[in-house]
């Protein structure tokens, strides 16, 4: 399995349950939104962004910051009622957890 697919699956596994947890009463809806949003941001980050920014710290920070903000925006838009604070919490929790999981599982290329 390619590293990109592994990273995408790991991200989904880490983020979808956490986002669902932050939205009791609309877990299925938010889990679906998370799966969709995370797929777009994760694949864009790993497949497109390196072409512009290389593979260094700038790529990492820009990609993760973009994912955090765009996913928060998505959750704020899809959640009922619309709530930016809760969306920010959900996105920060999910992205922080998936990033930490990635650091632990893929510390360096082999």
């Amino acid at each position: 399995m390619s590293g990109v697919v592994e990273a995408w699956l790991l991200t989904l596994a880490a983020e979808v349950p956490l986002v669902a947890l932050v939205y009791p009463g609309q877990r299925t809806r938010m889990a679906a939104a998370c799966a969709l949003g995370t797929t777009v941001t994760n694949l864009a980050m790993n497949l497109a962004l390196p072409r512009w920014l290389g593979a260094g710290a700038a790529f990492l920070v820009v990609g993760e910051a973009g994912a955090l903000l765009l996913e928060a925006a998505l959750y704020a838009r899809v959640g009922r009622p619309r709530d930016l604070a809760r969306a920010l919490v959900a996105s920060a929790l999910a992205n922080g957890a998936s990033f930490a999981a990635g650091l632990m599982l893929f510390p360096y290329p082999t």
Partner: protein
Amino acid sequence: MSGPTLRLALVAVAAFLPAEVRANCARPVGYDVSVVASTVTVQPSSGSPAGCGGDVAMLRQDVASGATVALATWCALSPDPYEGDAYVDECVPAGTYRYGFAEPFACCETCCGTYRYEKVTVTTALDPGCQRGEGNPGPTPVDPVAWGVPMGGGELICGYGHADFTNLGSWGCSTAAGSGAVLLLDAAALALGVGLLRRRRGARRG
């Protein structure tokens, strides 16, 4: 999402984007490796004459043990006149290996990555009677190289642009600052969100 929120998100993302957005990058610098049974062919791909028969040794490292050998000068002509000749490594036991020059390529900033080694897996069990080509002395053991270990030299030497990891693993110390910044950003966003939720609850009680 409301209009102002969308604008805020776009402005925040745009603030992080580089001033110079680059076009598509050139062919990566690295190695094209192919396996047929127990024979591995390593074609350096750098747009230069560097290749089999040159001054720099081509190494093969066993991923499992770290044991490293220098390949013999046993070559195959490159089909590309702009590339050096390929190394042919015969009678390679089954296993996963890294192939790369003892001296890594210089970073090519306009290429889609510059690679230190290429990893390949030989799945065919080595025939005990495997014979190398006449005149091929076979590989020579050398000191193990620090490939694929933290701080020792990751697969990527440098990415497109200016991310140069010549002396570092691409996920080693070179990205420690970036990783810290990402975790800090996530923590700040979490604190902001929790703070907003608390303030709203406090206002409701008041």
